[in-house]
């Protein structure tokens, strides 16, 4: 059976070049903090990777801090500001959005429960924040503004440069979780002028378990993991040398091909979108029509439930994800779609196709052949027949 992996926003397969580099260096066992030769060899790999990642985001390599992933990087920033506030920092409020990844959403709730002040910006039907609302919420008590570059579910890209300028004008630091954007659209620290950026290796064909927090040299940072001098004492723990090197190679590849890859993914995405709209009646495309990650297409099929669609597609070898509650084990559908003002039923029937470097036109043709009969079938079984 054909295997069509369309869940690249969840994770990507490693690039062959990354696999080769990691295989070649699997015996690089030294502790990158040691002074002897095997230590220095490992350190060379870590520093090479740091340089490649810095180049990809046009940043100072000194600001790159290796973490276990983007969840840690995001926690790192928020808990840094918690510590700052505890230390008596003159500003004590954080502004973020209502559609951040759970690692920010949950961290914000955790902080609110403990008496810190985290405000959430609303988004419109397309998932965009309003710069006007941000401006109104900003004040001289705001310490940090954190807005994701692009959303993992619907792909909507935020006006980061403008939002960052507003935050800076109000004297606040600015963080962006760029996990989904890295490797798909250009993220330039120089151009955006942001203070903190989070990213994850496995979202752009690197290995899992490694990520980066970029913190512009000089901005506040407090250790999340104590107990070592690594990363200038900000992140203790022996370097995960092999994974870091793999992420470096993934960054090198991404920097090389970002423009072509963007255009290629967008053309596949548009082929899929048009094909679905032509072949299936009554569909709703979620997210922003143009300011959207090139490989992300979130579609709702009213009267059809998402988990059933996902599992029927899985039987055909097509792998996607859904915003339906059933797939998450909770009873609530996607909070991202609900925050966009999408109707509960539409949210339960949402399917996210996230395309990647290794998908082909034939993959899209295969989906367009298999999907329509599955939707008719699920709708035929449904208690919901009315066309909304």
């Amino acid at each position: 059976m054909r295997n069509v992996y369309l869940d690249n926003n969840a994770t990507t397969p490693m690039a062959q070049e990354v696999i080769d580099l990691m295989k070649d260096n699997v015996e690089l066992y030294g502790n990158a903090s040691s002074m002897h030769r095997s230590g220095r060899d490992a350190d060379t790999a870590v520093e090479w990777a740091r340089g490649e990642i810095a180049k990809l985001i046009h940043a100072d390599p000194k600001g790159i801090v290796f973490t276990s992933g983007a969840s840690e990087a995001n926690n790192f920033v928020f808990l840094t500001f918690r510590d700052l506030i505890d230390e008596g920092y003159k500003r004590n409020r954080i502004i973020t959005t209502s559609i951040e990844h759970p690692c920010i959403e949950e961290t914000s709730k955790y902080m609110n429960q403990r008496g810190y002040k985290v405000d959430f910006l609303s988004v419109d039907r397309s998932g965009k924040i309003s710069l006007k609302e941000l401006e109104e919420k900003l004040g001289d008590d705001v310490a940090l503004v954190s807005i994701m570059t692009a959303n993992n579910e619907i792909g909507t890209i935020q006006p980061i440069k403008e939002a960052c300028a507003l935050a800076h004008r109000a004297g606040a630091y600015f963080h962006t979780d760029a996990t989904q954007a890295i490797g798909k659209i250009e993220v330039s620290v120089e151009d955006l002028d942001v203070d903190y950026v989070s990213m994850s290796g496995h979202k752009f064909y690197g290995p899992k378990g490694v990520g980066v927090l970029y913190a512009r040299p000089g901005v506040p940072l407090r250790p999340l993991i104590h107990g070592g001098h690594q990363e200038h004492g900000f992140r203790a723990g022996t370097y995960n040398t092999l994974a870091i090197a793999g992420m470096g190679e993934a960054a090198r590849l991404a920097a090389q091909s970002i423009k072509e890859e963007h255009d290629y993914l967008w053309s596949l995405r548009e082929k899929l979108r048009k094909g679905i709209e032509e072949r299936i009646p009554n569909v709703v495309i979620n997210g922003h029509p143009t300011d959207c990650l090139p490989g992300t297409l979130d579609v709702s099929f009213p009267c059809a439930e998402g988990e059933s669609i996902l599992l029927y597609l899985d039987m055909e070898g097509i792998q996607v994800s859904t915003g339906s509650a059933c797939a998450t084990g909770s009873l609530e559908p996607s909070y991202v779609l609900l925050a966009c003002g999408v109707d509960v039923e539409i949210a339960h029937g949402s399917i996210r196709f996230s395309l990647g470097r290794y998908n082909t036109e034939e993959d899209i043709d295969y989906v367009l052949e298999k999907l329509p009969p599955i939707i008719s079938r699920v709708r035929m079984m449904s208690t919901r027949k009315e066309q909304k």
Partner: protein
Amino acid sequence: MASSFMSQWVYTDTVKDHFMNPRNLWQENEDFEPDGVGEVGSLACGDQMRVGIQVEDGRIKDLRWLTYGCASAIASTSMMSEMAIGMTLEEAYHLTPTMIMDKLGGLPEHKFHCSVLGDKALRAAIDDYLEKNNLPNPYKNKVAKVMCECKNVTDVQIEELVKSGKVHTFEELQELTGVSTVCGKCRNRIKEELEELLHIYSK
């Protein structure tokens, strides 16, 4: 890409079979005249179920169903339909989610919720049939389980209060019935049951 780890499907083979080949589906073009129809569930929790039954000599002669729901909901309703056909109304009324789940070879714990709608819709269809034909309903209170012993409040009473929109919170339920105001032992059990019912009947 090669891997030495191979996964099983998410659910058991029986669930998969019923998911891929659902039995007794209510086809649109089919001429099925039900004697009773029951509908439960809400879109808020992503599950809605409709069951139609034909009754002959006090037995379920035939049954059709539709669902807006996940794979577990589809499979458990399909299995329920096979089990219910041929049963007396009394037997059918006593079908429980656990009996359906056992036949399916089990469902993951967080999917239990999805399997409780099939038998509820079936009971609603039987209620509807008895009411339409002005027949007494001897089952309704017999299946009731006492939830609060101090105040003698049953699950059926609680369900009725939620269904009719009189209760939306645990506090409202306490005010109306006094549950869990004496020894308090039933508190967690009733809260869980109430949460489930609110999901099924909200909206």
